[in-house]
């Protein structure tokens, strides 16, 4: 039976984020959380494959312990169990750290044939975790997938990758990892009974002590401010003397230094 792992991220709901008009700082205190949009497509695709081929589906996430509300949410969408890789230090992880932690939890411990990830998260959208995890596990990887077909007889998948210049059809042997685009499917809304049934499904708590050392961060965030658009209503020409005026205006505003 096909064994599928579907990775998801618990992110801030961007609709709830407010901006302080003066400082442009982001205000998160009233922001709720949700499963990242494209991860919902990943879970839905796993469930589609389960309906078609009778697969087992488990969800896996890396998060701080405070994110435990994510578990019933993801379990209500179909997976039979969830792996909750959690530690207090897991807030604001970098993609490389998430990819390393997932690999540490999965390698040799969780059996799988196919890992499905969303193409990118709705907060950082680096699109890196899927490919990093595949590299760490030494398995085939296809990103930007908007169609999956499982060929059971050959133990492989055939996927369509939507690229800028067209569709590329690729065949991958299992085990493999794919990252999916939102147009791959339309996630269903869980029924009430599915929501109530989530509490009965098993959750595997995987804590840091079982994974070894947390990989070090390589990036430092110096600030997060909301983008603004101000219309300055200045007009510049293309003559040599006008270029100077343009550069002075940009220098004055601190856009260039």
């Amino acid at each position: 039976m096909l064994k599928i792992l579907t990775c998801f991220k618990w992110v801030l709901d961007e609709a709830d984020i407010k901006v302080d008009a003066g400082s442009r700082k982001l205000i998160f205190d009233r922001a709720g959380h949700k499963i990242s949009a494209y991860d919902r497509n990943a879970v839905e695709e796993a469930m589609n494959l389960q309906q078609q081929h009778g697969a087992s589906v488990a969800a896996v996430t890396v998060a701080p312990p405070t994110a435990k509300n994510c578990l019933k949410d993801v379990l209500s969408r179909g997976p039979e169990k969830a792996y909750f890789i959690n530690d207090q230090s897991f807030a604001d992880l970098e993609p490389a750290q998430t990819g390393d932690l997932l690999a540490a939890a999965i390698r040799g411990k969780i059996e799988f044939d196919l890992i499905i990830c969303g193409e990118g998260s709705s907060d950082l959208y680096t699109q890196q975790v899927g490919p990093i995890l595949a590299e760490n596990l030494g398995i085939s990887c296809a990103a930007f997938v908007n169609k999956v077909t499982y060929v059971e007889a050959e133990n492989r998948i055939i996927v369509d990758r939507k690229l800028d210049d067209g569709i590329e059809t690729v065949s991958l042997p299992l085990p493999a990892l794919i990252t999916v685009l939102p147009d791959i499917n339309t996630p269903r809304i869980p029924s009430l009974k599915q929501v109530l049934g989530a509490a009965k499904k098993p959750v595997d708590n995987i804590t840091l002590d079982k994974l070894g050392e947390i990989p070090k961060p390589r990036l430092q965030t110096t600030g997060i401010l909301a983008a603004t658009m101000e219309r300055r209503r200045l007009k510049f020409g293309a003559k040599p003397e006008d270029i100077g005026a343009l550069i002075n205006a940009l220098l004055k505003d601190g856009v260039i230094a």
Partner: protein
Amino acid sequence: MQFELTEEQELVKANMREFCEKYVEPVANEIDYEARFPAENIRRLAEQDMLGIPYPEEYGGAGSDYLTYVMTVEELARACAATGFLVETNTSLVCFSLYKYGSEDQKKKYLAPLCKGDALGAFALGERGLAGDAATTTAVSDGDGYVLNGVKTFVMNAPVAGIFVVFADVAKSGGAGGPSAFIVSADTPGLEVGKPLDKMGARGAPSSEVVLKDCRIPKENLLGQEGQGAVIAGASLDSGRIGIAALALGIAQAALEESVRHSKERVQFGQAICNFQAIQWMIANMGTEIEVCRYLTYYAAWCYDQGLPYSEEAAIAKLMASETAVHQSDRAVQIHGGIGTVKGQKVERLYRDAKITQIHGGTPEFTKMIIADCVLG
């Protein structure tokens, strides 16, 4: 005191909102304009286990609680009051009466299809000139069954219902007699559903007369005991009031959201009108009143779930929420100005949908009687 929703309740509320934005809101204007029964959305709600939320799974329900049910009704009404009314009439009035007073056989035969969405329910209580009393519809026992005669008015869901709970008076002669409740299937000979009324609001939830003309039903279709009709009606309307409060809450919430959106977009006198204090005070009042009604409604539902008495709480919630829905839909039109009176604008529909929440299930005058009784002791 615990003011947090459970994880499940949060999820259901979010799912319901998504459902309404995807399926209900897009057809809400069309349903209102054409007075069309949204059969496709009722079917989808049934697939989402939303038609028998607070009733046990063994009877086809979702096995959840009244608070979860109330929040789904609120979300439905926020998108389309008519759809909310269809569900609320089915689940609060008809299902409740069957659940609390039905025999095991009756629950399996009639409650289960209502909870699963195989049939919709209608509550035939009111009569011309005698709101709330079953006095002129009669039920004559002939040993094996009853023969019903009479006319019921303003029966919501009647044109699309498969199962009716009908209130009729059994003549007191030897047996118990008195106002009683009966279960009548739509296909029973002698039950005729009138033409749908051309209503001001909640137009997608059709209401009509129900005429009983020598309508014969087997004696197993007596709900509860002879003479228990007033109790059954009273108890069903009590829980129904929490449902109507939820409907009114949803309408008020939509009125507020439309007002906020419009006031930010509409520019007059050189700025968005939300910058003017007059508008800000209207919005502040609306926001405050909605919070009050939300807590009253959720509290009444919580009392129901805890097995505590809830008649007074339900009456208070219904009184306040329906008044709020009417005031706020009025204010919302005001904030929109002229455009708010044009068909196609959501606030125009909300204004018309709000009024029935002050009448259906007990007028303010009636609910005040209930509250006064409780408060005066």
